[in-house]
């Protein structure tokens, strides 16, 4: 039997590629930008297995161009770029990387929460621009206390739970909303369940950790922002389209909410002339939710192992 062929759509760390090389000839897309639709179709043409990222659209068209494909392994926990139903219909298993990156993403969510609350990026921008002239003033750079503030977690998957655990270290009062209730998590982390409008009304900090689905598209838009406190801070580490960017811009500009911190935007990268970037009361990071070591390496290794399992016909 000839060796399997695997196509990997972005450069990975060598340790992860070696795992795949044990069972397949590996072609790695070498460019800094992701492959285009045509380039992806071409490379998948003779591939038995592919390792994808969220930048690759895996739909019926691509699968039509990949007759030998028998395993898809995604380097992410979100699968909104993969038509999983279509792949399943064709008998192609789809692997993903839950769990392994939850803590890292929760760390970043807390980094954004604290950064927005205490205005660290904003004040540093001012400092680096030469703004710091008076050594100390009692009312300069006032932020918001995090300790004992109310945190509202929207979406209590693994990432939401890890956020809850960390927020506990700050004596935060934590309320959550999710499609299902989790009494075990309520007991373990001291959480209260709330209906979505109640969460929005109570929370000093709202953090979004939901998957992107048709139901969560623009989950936060004008009406939701209007329900939030004027002192509230919104944090998004889920997917850009969960938040309506135009509505968010207006809410921040007009002081309907106090601040926002986004790791994800729609589109990505955000356009240089996007009005959101004119705001001082915004913290924005370039989709680095789980971009840390050793988590990224562990995520790559899991995706590699998933691909190997799929190629061997074993469960991912």
């Amino acid at each position: 039997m000839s060796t399997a062929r695997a196509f990997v759509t972005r450069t990975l760390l060598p340790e992860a590629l070696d795992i795949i090389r044990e069972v397949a000839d590996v072609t790695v897309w070498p460019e800094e930008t992701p492959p285009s639709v045509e380039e992806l179709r071409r490379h998948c043409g003779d591939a038995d297995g592919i390792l994808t990222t969220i930048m690759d659209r895996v739909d019926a068209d691509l699968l039509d161009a990949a007759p030998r494909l028998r395993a898809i392994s995604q380097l992410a926990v979100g699968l909104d770029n993969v038509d999983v139903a279509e792949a399943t219909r064709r008998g192609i298993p789809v692997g993903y990387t839950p769990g392994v990156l939850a803590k890292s993403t929760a760390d970043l969510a807390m980094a954004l929460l604290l950064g927005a609350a205490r205005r660290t990026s904003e004040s540093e921008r001012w400092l680096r621009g030469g703004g710091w002239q008076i050594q100390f003033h009692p009312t300069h750079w006032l932020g918001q206390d995090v300790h004992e503030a109310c945190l509202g977690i929207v979406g209590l998957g693994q990432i939401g739970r890890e956020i809850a655990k960390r927020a506990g270290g700050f004596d935060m009062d934590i309320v959550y909303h999710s499609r299902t209730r989790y009494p075990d998590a309520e007991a373990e982390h001291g959480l209260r369940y709330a209906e979505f409008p109640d969460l929005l009304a109570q929370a000093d900090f709202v953090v979004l950790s939901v998957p992107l689905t048709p139901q969560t598209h623009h989950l936060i838009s004008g009406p939701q922002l209007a329900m939030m406190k004027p002192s509230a801070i919104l944090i998004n580490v889920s997917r850009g389209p969960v938040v309506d960017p135009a509505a968010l811009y207006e809410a921040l500009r007009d002081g309907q909410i106090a601040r926002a911190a986004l790791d994800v935007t729609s589109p990505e990268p955000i356009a240089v002339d996007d009005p959101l970037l004119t705001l001082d009361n915004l913290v924005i990071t370039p989709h680095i939710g789980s971009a840390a070591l050793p988590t990224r390496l562990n995520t790559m290794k899991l995706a590699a192992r998933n691909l190997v399992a799929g190629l061997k016909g074993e469960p991912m």
Partner: protein
Amino acid sequence: MPYDTIDREVIEAAADLRAISTYSVGYEHIDLQCTKSRGILVGYTPDVLTRATADLAFALMLDVMRRVSEGDRLIRSGGWQQVFGPCDFLGTDLETKTVGILGPGRIGLSFAEKAQAFGMKVVYHGNGRLSERQERQAGIEHVSLNQLFSESDIVSLHIPHTKRTHDMVNRSLLAKMKRGAFIVNTSRGRVINQKDLVLALQNGDLAGAALDVFYDEPLGADSPLAKMENVVLTPHMGSSTKETRENMARLAVLNLKMAMAGRRPKCAV
């Protein structure tokens, strides 16, 4: 205010002075020998600012380890042109890392509590030792000064500025740190020899630093630190939240009123 020098000269010039109330928990700017000899009561503001300062120290640590402000800067300067590949713009995970707290006082211990919620290991060193019970309750381990610097992935400073701690974190201590370690300072700028720190950062010995306090304040835009990407710099705002500053103000005023009435301030130095 913490930047006012209340030394012998100032105190002796104020013949009727009976009471000093500082709007800070640090009191190194007040000549306590002089106030004691003249029977002047001195108040300060511990406890009310503990958590706000620990919160900021933690915010700074997260920022430098996960490159938050660096990323924000990159985007605003137009530097984010394509979505990053899996190997790009990587920061450092917190879980299983060791954070070393120098100065296990109120703020240091509050910081330790948060570190544990993130799955970090916490070691400490200070002037004295905590009791075994305190160590167990806080879940932290005592180590020597050298061990603190050589074993920690992050060192966070929570010590007062005194003659003994002046320039304490110098080339010799910095050289003991792991390559790729971080340092966080929300205490006082002059406990670090800033020139030595700049060198350590420029040589790549340290992965980064997050500083709320500096040798000389304000820090200008022309400082070598302000030219680095792997440092986070904030303008001495450790206790700067609306609620905390209000509480500090109330306490500082109460301290002053009590001292002027000849009573020991609520929080007396």
